[in-house]
């Protein structure tokens, strides 16, 4: 997932800059011992921060996903009730004038409300994943200021093109180097990115079920669901500049020439049931592996995540 590539010094600085400045020590060798003594606590602090952020954004995802599920459920229920209204046995209520019409209007309004709520849950999920990606990209710890400066400081952005921000690849706590931390974090975040795209398709489909006559407000895969969505998706590498459309959803570790997304409006009840189940199943998220990663990292850092 290129989106998750950590910003290396070479990417942050143009090559011309590199040429014009003679590099004092040409090998990005392990830092001098004094520096590494100072670097390690700063790197540890930073990693603790980023991992606890990852853990809390995972919780945020879980809660947004579950509220999204319940809004989707309510939306589908209201929609089906409305669809069945004409054939519904109303008994004595039959005599009331316009009862069906009024009921339909009410169910329509309900659907509108749930649609808005569902969309906002989706937005929350996007936000959670973006935060995860940010945490994932901020795991390196760079030295700022010049080396002869008495005050040594560290930050998340590279100040020196020789500084890879990983302390020369040494282990930060016990065993794992910065790049191992990054690898695990990427593995974890990738699941959420992939799942988010599946959820997008579901949101799109669910928002498209309409209370009016069929095929009037059907959304398409290339439609933006809210202002700024495509910018967010680009951050997550889910937007293709080629097609000017979001990347089609797919399953983890499955290389396939995904066919174009075809939105089917007015799905039947069975399809809606499958949509809701798919929402719940979180096909791209391997919760077991995520727990494993968090407990591994927790052990490494001597903190309890989750």
């Amino acid at each position: 997932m290129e989106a998750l590539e950590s910003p290396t010094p070479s990417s942050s600085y143009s090559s011309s800059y590199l040429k014009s400045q003679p590099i004092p020590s040409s090998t990005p060798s392990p830092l001098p011992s004094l520096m590494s003594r100072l670097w390690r606590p700063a790197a540890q602090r930073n990693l603790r921060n980023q991992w606890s952020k990852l853990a809390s954004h995972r919780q945020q995802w879980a809660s947004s996903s579950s509220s999204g599920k319940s809004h989707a459920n309510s939306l589908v229920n209201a929609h089906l009730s409305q669809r069945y209204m004409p054939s519904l046995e109303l008994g004595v209520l039959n005599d009331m004038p316009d009862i069906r019409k009024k009921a339909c209007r009410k169910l329509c309004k309900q659907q509108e409300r749930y649609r808005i709520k569902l969309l906002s849950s989706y937005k929350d999920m996007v936000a959670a994943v973006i935060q995860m990606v940010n945490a994932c990209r901020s795991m390196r710890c760079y030295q700022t200021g010049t080396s002869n400066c008495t005050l040594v400081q560290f930050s998340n952005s590279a100040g020196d093109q020789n500084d890879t921000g990983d302390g020369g690849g040494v282990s930060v706590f016990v065993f794992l180097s910065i790049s191992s931390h990054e690898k695990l974090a990427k593995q974890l975040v990738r699941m959420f990115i992939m799942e988010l795209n599946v959820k997008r398709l579901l949101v799109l489909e669910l928002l498209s079920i309409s209370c009016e006559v069929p095929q009037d407000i059907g959304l398409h895969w290339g439609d933006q669901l809210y202002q700024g969505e495509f910018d967010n998706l680009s951050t997550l590498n889910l937007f293709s500049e080629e097609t000017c459309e979001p990347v089609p959803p797919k399953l983890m570790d499955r290389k396939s020439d995904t066919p174009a997304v075809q939105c089917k409006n007015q799905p039947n009840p069975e399809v809606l049931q499958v949509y809701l189940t798919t929402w719940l199943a979180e096909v791209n998220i391997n919760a077991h592996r995520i727990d494993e990663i968090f407990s591994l990292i927790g052990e490494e850092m001597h903190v309890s995540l989750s």
Partner: protein
Amino acid sequence: MEAMVKKYQQKFRKVRDEMNRWDELQCRLISQFRNASSIIERLQVLQDPSNYGALNCIDGIRDEVLRKQMESLEINLLSMKRTMEEFHGIVFSIEKIHRDSKQQIKGGSSKPNAKQLQQRVGVKPSLVDCLDGLLVLYDMHHSEYRLKASVVSALSALTLKPSASDLCALQQLLVDQPNIPKEEVQFIFDIIFAEEIC
């Protein structure tokens, strides 16, 4: 003899505690059963690729959704099994209470004769009342445990051939607990603790 009856009442209180725990487990078992049966009911719909609508553009989606659902079903069935083990623990402990009580009368130093066994002092229960009560309560829970165990195993069998009406009937059977009639239980406790009611 009165002291003996007091001891028995103590045992009935223990049984009551066990029965309260039974009720908690009952709630848990029913919600586990509901979850499992709703997954089983969905399986057929999930198996048909034509039900995936727009999701069909995701290669392999059907297998993955099915796999995930089977996984949660398995976890669910496993936790039901664990709940059943706890039910069994309750049956076992009621049985033990009854067995110990019988032992006390037969093996105790002051062997009461038949008349003493039947004797009632005031509203207090006789020793026979106590023993019989414990036996009945044990029988009820033992039979109910066996019924639940067979319902749970029937549920696993239905996974392969789901039928909505069967699932519904099984659930009703679990909820009803036909082997533990509430009035009868109340009646037993009323006799044992008659003095507290008066």
